[in-house]
């Protein structure tokens, strides 16, 4: 056990020596790995935050039931009765047309336009939420309400949010596919750098085998090399994503302000960053393992 640890120490030192011996080549490999990693990680970051933003907007999907303009108080009372009778209705709120108009007037820039109107164009309305917010309930209620007398228009407010959500799901799948491809690229990059390493260290491998080195002994420095190179790529990808978030945020905050929402990208959370580093090291290790196993087998055959 102690000699096992000792040999890992040797292999690790060896790998670090090799990485720093040709800094330019190492840097380029690490940079390629970092770019391959930062693309899916950056997109994932943006999408997941957009998703939580959209969830927050549609946290309580509402149904707005607009009465026909010729409807009156008794029609509203009839609808209210129906809402109260429905066991799945959570809460409802009546907004009289006069109140709706004054609410709208309070919005900036609208009062001039509205003052010129001869009569109030807005209908009476109910804003309804359901228990459990299940899409089937919401859709059933929407369809029923459409058939009620003196109902002008029924709108499911969460619909645009659900469309956004579906679009984001599509985006996430695309990111997952991209991430998988670029992970394979990372493995391929490591496979190739290790292949070059093995070619230049062929003499060492052959002599070591002749004087009694086991395959794990020969493999270890290469595995550490692959894992360290992957890890360095992960760290650099983290930095790239952090810089990109910093740069994008300036413009993004301004853009969001135009839509009077506050939205900004946060950097990678610590658990996410941890899993980025873990995966990059693991994939580097995997590429090295594939490469060294294949090439040791080739050397052994001769």
């Amino acid at each position, binding site marked *: 056990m102690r*000699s096992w640890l000792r040999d890992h120490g040797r292999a690790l030192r060896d790998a670090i020596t090799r990485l720093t011996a040709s800094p330019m080549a190492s840097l380029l490999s690490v940079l390629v790995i970092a770019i391959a990693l930062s693309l899916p990680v950056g997109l994932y970051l943006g999408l997941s935050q957009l998703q939580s933003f959209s969830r927050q907007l549609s946290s309580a999907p509402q149904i707005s039931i607009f009465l026909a303009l010729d409807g009156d108080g008794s029609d509203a009372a009839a609808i209210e009765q129906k809402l109260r009778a429905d066991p799945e209705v959570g809460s409802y709120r009546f907004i009289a047309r006069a109140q709706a108009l004054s609410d709208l007037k309070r919005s900036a820039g609208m009062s001039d336009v509205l003052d010129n109107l001869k009569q109030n164009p807005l209908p009476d309305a109910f804003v309804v939420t359901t228990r459990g917010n299940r899409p089937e309930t919401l859709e059933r209620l929407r369809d029923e309400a459409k058939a009620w007398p003196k109902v002008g228009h029924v709108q499911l407010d969460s619909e645009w949010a659900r469309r956004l959500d579906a679009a984001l799901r599509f985006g996430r799948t695309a990111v997952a596919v991209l991430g998988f491809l670029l992970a394979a690229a990372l493995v391929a990059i490591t496979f190739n750098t290790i292949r070059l390493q093995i070619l230049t260290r062929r003499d*060492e491998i*052959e002599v*070591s085998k002749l*004087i009694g080195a*086991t395959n794990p002994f020969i493999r270890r420095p290469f595995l550490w090399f692959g894992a360290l190179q992957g890890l360095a790529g992960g760290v650099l990808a983290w930095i790239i994503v952090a810089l990109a978030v910093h740069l994008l945020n300036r413009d993004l905050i301004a853009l969001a302000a135009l839509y009077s929402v506050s939205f900004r990208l946060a950097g990678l959370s610590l658990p996410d960053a941890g899993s980025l580093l873990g995966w990059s090291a693991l994939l580097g290790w995997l590429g090295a393992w594939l490469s060294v196993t294949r090439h040791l087998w080739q050397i052994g055959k001769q």
Partner: protein
Amino acid sequence: MARRPTQRESAPPSASPLISLSHVFKRYLGGFEALRDVSLAIESGELVLIMGHSGAGKSTLLKLMAAIERPSAGTVLISGQNVAKLRPAALPFLRRRFGIVFQDHKLLYDRSVFQNVLLPLQIAGFERRDAARRARAALDKVELLAKEKAMPITLSGGEQQRVCIARAVVHRPAVLLVDEPTGNLDEAYARNIVELFGAFHQVGVTVVIATHDRSVAEQLPARIIQLGQGRIAA
């Protein structure tokens, strides 16, 4: 069940010879027959010279003894173990019982003399300080301690060979296999080197030297195995 020999194990536990070959043939790809029906036994502690012209099969014989190559026919037993039946994973542990002085030295030119000699100890898993001490002792024995930091490429042919000898003995192998030690050395230097092998034999190491050089036979009190065209002649 193959037994895993450890690196400092010397005498075999059984009465079987250290190395024994029976009816061994070695045919290379292309049909060249390097060894034909060779049978021999080497006891622990022996000093053996394998003599013969170049192409007589001396190097092949050494490679079979060190389990670097496998016979085309016949059996090679090392301490009673059939090399052909050994698991691949057990082979490295068998090889650690040998120290090999290669004809072409096989030094690693990307590291110092000291690092070259250290390699077998790293492979065997020695502790770092212990390994460094042993490596220096081995370099001292071949009188190259002063050049431990030198790169092998800067050394003369004779010095490179002595580095190779230091690397071969540093882990105290039970058997020292030497391929053409005096190949391109001047006479005085060659005598010096051969004396060194005599000294290792004196302290109990089994030494097998393959050479075409008759003066080696005059210098050492060795059993001589004459090889000619792949057969044992005498």
